[in-house]
């Protein structure tokens, strides 16, 4: 698993999307992160750093290549803008709604 800086993560994520365009899936995982760098021992007390409350972990993979980054509250604004644009630009292969479907929806809504 490659841990990258936010900007580099976005670049690599764009590459993943482009690579998987003809065939394949892109998986993105978002999870809260408390800053731990060592595994918690089964027995004994948890020593070391106080858990941080303001970070999240973002992972991406195409099944083979794995990348990840940590986003904290300080960078979230800037990161989120770039990230949203990236998602919207790359997830463009879905069906647009056409007239036929609109009629169907109107019928089922009634």
């Amino acid at each position, binding site marked *: 698993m490659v841990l990258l800086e936010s900007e580099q993560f976005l670049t690599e994520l764009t590459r993943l*999307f482009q690579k998987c*365009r003809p065939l394949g899936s892109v998986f993105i995982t978002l999870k809260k992160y*408390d800053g731990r760098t060592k595994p918690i021992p089964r027995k004994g007390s948890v020593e070391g750093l106080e858990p941080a409350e*303001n970070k999240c972990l973002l992972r991406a993979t195409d099944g083979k290549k794995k990348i990840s980054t940590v986003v904290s509250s300080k960078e979230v604004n800037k990161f989120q803008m770039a990230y949203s644009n990236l998602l919207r630009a790359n997830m463009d292969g879905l069906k647009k709604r056409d007239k036929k479907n609109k009629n169907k929806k109107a019928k089922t809504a009634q």
Partner: protein
Amino acid sequence: MCFSCQVRVVLKYRHADGTLCMKVTDDAVCLVYRTEQAQDVKKIEKFHSQLMRLMVAKEPRTVAVAEAD
């Protein structure tokens, strides 16, 4: 032990099939939304960003639910 650390959000996008799938789970409950509609991309992306902000926020925040569709 942080229990909210057990919640994860997974996005799966397949351009070849034109499908987008969003899963939210805490290993006890699993919620999945699957779509092929382009209009859902913006909603899912907004929701994903909202969840990211919640995870990164220090103080507990409540989310006002936007208009239901």
